[in-house]
């Protein structure tokens, strides 16, 4: 009961959060600082993607591994899903990634070959992959974040999703870039 109330408040707050839309954010710094305007939207997108992804077995909590130097990952802690599950953030070294230990993988700013290695490791193991710095989505990550001015969106790699061993709600495709 207490958890549900907290969750409700959190979600209400979440729904009320306007998208990054301030006029002074036309020029966006590549590397986020302590007041990174992209941090909150990224957190929300990661949470929402997790929301609409279903694992073969229900994960509780959902372990989110962050690999490499991430620019907008400040707000990935203490995320909570609508059904009350917690998203547990864990920072993992580039070489320390083990698919069995992670339900989701947030790939920071690493080189493309490394990204490929990570996604190859994750493929078919039931790991949700989100790449922060792959706007063309060539790393075989399932989701690739995009940072156009004033907003954060994402791209989906259908092929990667098909091979991931996970199910993603097809309605998410509508929200992704190029999915409309």
């Amino acid at each position: 009961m207490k958890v549900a109330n907290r969750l409700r408040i959190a979600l209400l707050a979440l729904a009320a959060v306007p998208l990054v839309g301030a006029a002074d954010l036309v020029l966006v710094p590549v590397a986020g600082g302590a007041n990174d305007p992209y941090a909150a939207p990224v957190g929300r997108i990661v949470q929402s993607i997790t929301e609409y992804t279903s694992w073969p077995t229900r994960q509780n909590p959902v372990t989110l591994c962050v690999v490499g130097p991430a620019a907008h990952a400040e707000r990935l802690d203490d995320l909570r899903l609508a059904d009350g599950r917690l998203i547990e953030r864990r920072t993992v070294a580039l070489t320390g990634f083990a698919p069995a230990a992670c339900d989701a993988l947030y790939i920071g700013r690493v080189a493309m070959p490394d990204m490929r290695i990570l996604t190859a490791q994750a493929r078919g193991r039931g790991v949700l992959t989100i790449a922060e710095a792959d706007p063309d989505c060539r790393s075989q990550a399932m989701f690739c974040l995009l940072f156009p001015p004033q907003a954060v969106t994402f791209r989906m790699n259908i092929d990667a999703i098909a091979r991931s061993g996970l199910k993603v709600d097809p309605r998410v495709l509508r929200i992704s870039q190029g999915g409309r």
Partner: protein
Amino acid sequence: MALRRIFGMSSSAAQSAALPTLAQILGRVHLRLILFAVALAAASLVVSGGIVIRNYAQRNLDLIARTVSYTVEPAVVFGDADAIREGLVSVAAVGGVDRVEVRDPAGRVLAHWQHSHAELHSGIEDVANGVIWPDPSRAAIQRGDVVIGQVRVYGNSEGLLRYILAGLIIALSCLGLTVLATRILAQRLQKDVIGPLDHVADVAHSVRSDRAFEKRVPSSGIAEIDRFGQDFNALLAELQGWHAGLTSENAELARRATHDSLSGLGNRVLFEQTLGDAIGSSVRSGVSFAVLYLDVDHFKDINDRHGHECGDAALIAVAERLRQSIRHVDHAFRLGGDEFAVVLAPFYNRAHVDAVSARIDKSMERPFRLPNGLFATSTLSIGVAVYPDDGVSPQDLLRRADAEMYLRKRGRRSAGFEGIENA
């Protein structure tokens, strides 16, 4: 109409002209019936159809609201206003929807879509929208047990208004068609019902105006009218009988007025009439004619000696012989008592008059039988007046003939009446 002749017989012409015909009454009743039926059918169809359509549209709106809710749910979770708008447009931008809103739990509108009022938009539609869809269809957007937004779908009455309009147009067309059909049916009914009645009316009219009592109403195909026709025919037959009796009685009365009942010859009235006619036709043709004045000699003796019965018999005998002595174009009359007259038809020769006189004299030579069994003979004194030689007016002619007759009578006073004993 012939019917008007029957029903309007006693009333004035103006009144009968104002009376409606049976066909008009039938047509009016038909029209009212049809108007009522079509209006009732159209109204009930439009109302029940409208209710059914509204209910389906309501369900459709509920379905749209739920579908929008399902479609935009991820977009609301992601917080993507564009995606919310696209999602709701893809589902809700259909006919029958006036406005769709997606609101967050605080009531703020995240995205909305409004039906464009490019065509057929008017205040009527707004009013109708408010009346037909006072409340929007609502559907909550949920993620798990948590409500994260609400969809509101406002109905559009345009489709319903179109349905009602189409219903009205169809009802009006049906009305036109049925009115036309009513006309045709009424005409047929008129032919079937009023035709036979018109037969009756025609017969009644010709009976009244032409005294054609021999006419009868033909049998019609309708029981009531047939019964009426039969009674009418029976009435006509009675009328015909009465009329025939009356006619013959009148003829008899007319004959009695102008004929002598004893001798059967024309009386003085007919004589004067015939004399006048003869003068008229002689004036035109210029041909002479003659009047004979006859008196039975010693008629008083017959009466005195043998009684009035024998006198009457003598008069009948004289009349009979007069009738036999003249041609059928001549006319004999008994003017009263023992006085007789004959109007001879126009002739070209005076000798003809003398021949008739001689024929009469000769016919009187034969004895006639009296009721007491005796036979008797009698003579007639004849005075002749010829038009225009002896006068041109009836009085002159009669006076002249009378005077001549008296001359003759005085000359043969001695002859007298002779009774003969029955052998």
